[in-house]
């Protein structure tokens, strides 16, 4: 078991490095001269040239990449904003809790709402519960979350005045952003849970369980659900990533001071260290969550667990089991 954990953690390193290199490379080709952006429109050619030299912008790609990797990973220096010279890393750590909060609430509701609804749909297949839930889920995955956000602001803030539309004034400020973020995730989760449950309900071991005289409740929640949870849990990691991505846009609609808003403002200002740093930061967060999900998955699925039990016990069992 320990070997699997270590192996999986070690695997994180090349992925994170690869992500950083990929992001750096993509942004390397962004049009515009950073030196010019920093100094502004009134700068002279000479000033720009000097700044380019100081920033090392004339060095070959490999050197710049090396410098980027070194400062990012060894010094936790993600650069500073072109606009206000605040270190990016500092701003990111300040803003991350708000973004993470929305993403985590999303995931929690996916589990708490999506999975039970999917189970109900599967258990009552083709009856009214199933049809209603499937239709609702379909609509849920078809609504653009930021548009829904605007519709909700229209109704709950402008027309009814119940909830604040912009910024963080109280815990109420999080209600609409969380709801809009979680809608697609919950709808997707309902659909996936329904699909997997239907598959499990039709499998042979369920027939065996019925022939044993077990009640429907035990069969669904003890037998079928434990098998369904396995692919669902692997999905939850990916859902967190999608939630992070979705939060970026939602934060903009609600002007929530999280990483999303930080990043999008930077796009408009061509403040590239901010954009780059934000994406690297969020990608690393995502990778860590995926790692935790993978590890959790190994604990739940006994087939994976067994693969990593000490070799000698495995060999002994193998000998015993081949004797029919």
């Amino acid at each position, binding site marked *: 078991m320990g070997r699997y954990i270590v192996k999986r953690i070690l695997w994180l390193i*090349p992925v994170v490095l*690869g992500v950083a290199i990929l992001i750096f490379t993509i*942004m390397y080709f962004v049009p515009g001269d950073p030196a010019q952006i920093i100094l502004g429109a009134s700068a002279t050619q000479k000033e720009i040239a000097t700044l380019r030299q100081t920033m090392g912008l004339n060095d070959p790609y490999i050197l710049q990449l090396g410098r980027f990797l070194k400062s990012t990973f060894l010094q936790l220096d993600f650069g500073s904003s072109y606009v206000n010279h605040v270190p990016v890393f500092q701003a990111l750590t300040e803003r991350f809790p708000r973004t993470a909060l929305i993403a985590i609430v999303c995931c929690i509701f996916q589990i708490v709402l999506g999975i039970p609804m999917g189970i109900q749909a599967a258990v009552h297949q083709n009856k009214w519960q199933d049809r209603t839930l499937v239709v609702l889920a379909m609509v849920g995955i078809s609504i653009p979350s930021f548009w829904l956000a605007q519709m909700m602001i229209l109704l709950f803030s402008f027309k009814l005045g119940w909830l604040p539309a912009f910024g963080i004034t109280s815990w109420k400020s999080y209600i609409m952003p969380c709801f809009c973020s979680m809608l697609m995730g919950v709808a997707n989760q309902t659909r996936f849970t329904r699909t997997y449950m239907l598959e499990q309900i039709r499998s042979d071991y369920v027939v065996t369980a019925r022939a044993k005289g077990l009640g429907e409740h035990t069969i669904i929640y003890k037998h079928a659900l434990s098998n369904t949870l396995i692919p669902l849990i692997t999905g939850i990691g990916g859902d967190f990533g999608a939630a992070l991505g979705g939060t970026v846009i939602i934060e903009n609609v609600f002007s929530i001071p999280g990483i999303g808003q930080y990043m999008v403002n930077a796009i408009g200002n061509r403040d590239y260290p901010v954009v780059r740093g934000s994406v690297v930061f969020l990608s690393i967060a995502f990778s860590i969550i995926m790692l935790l999900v993978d590890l959790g998955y190994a604990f739940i699925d006994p087939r994976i667990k067994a693969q990593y039990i000490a070799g000698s016990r495995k060999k002994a069992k193998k000998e015993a089991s081949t004797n029919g």
Partner: protein
Amino acid sequence: MAEPTAAAALDKAELKRSARAAKRRAFREGWHRMCRNKVAVTGLVVIVLLLLIAVFAPYLSKYKYDAIDPLHAHLLPCADHPFGTDGLGRDLLSRVLYGTRYSLAIAFCSQLVGIVLGIFLGALAGFFEGLVSDLIMRFCDIFQAIPATLMAILVSQTLGAGFLSTVLALAVTTAPSTTRIVRALILQIRNQEFIEAGRAINCSNGLLICRHILPNIIPQVIISFTGGLSGKFIESAGLSYLGLGIQPPTPEWGALLTDGKAFLRYFPNLVIVPGVFIMVAALAFNLVGDGLRDALDPKMRD
């Protein structure tokens, strides 16, 4: 000697004919199954409607989509302008109808490029084991470690706003997952016995790929294509909202949303209408995608 070969040739032709007939029957069966699914058919009808709108857009409303009319700016829906007008007096109905062209085009093109790229890479990874396969899969891992929206934002920013860059930005988010699916399928098919049989009678690699492997991945490819299409409408609108992607004055639905976002409070029609169109298009493609999947994937049958 001539007689046996003539007979053999006849048999071969007969076999080919019956094989093709069987394939046609299978497709027809799938199609019939799909037609029985009323919900999917509704989606299909909506898609056809959207396509018609896209083609005949200029003839469908009396205003041109880019006709500026400052005197009639910011009108709420009325008899003359069923959806109202925007800040420059342009009729929203015409703009939304004309925007159908751009939205459909972006969605289709980006999904197509993404899938084709995915098939190419997935086939490479599936067919050639070893270093090539490993490299491609590691690339996919790294690409997928970046949340899709962020990746689209990154690529879009580098390439700038505009049609082509948006298509590429969105295609890049589809390609990795398609690569995985195609690779898994190909690995599965490769190991099946009919491929062994093909090799045993000395089929060339090219023949194996074209005649045997590719046709078997078509159903899954169709399912992936239609399934991901609906998301493209929403993603491209999202990019426009952030200032990337397609920008005004192009009447793409996402750009229309961007145009209208400042006026949410007093002229909500500018935001409501394009959003509804996006939602309807996404829903239609989702319904059709699900219907196709139910019809083509034997496992889903009851």
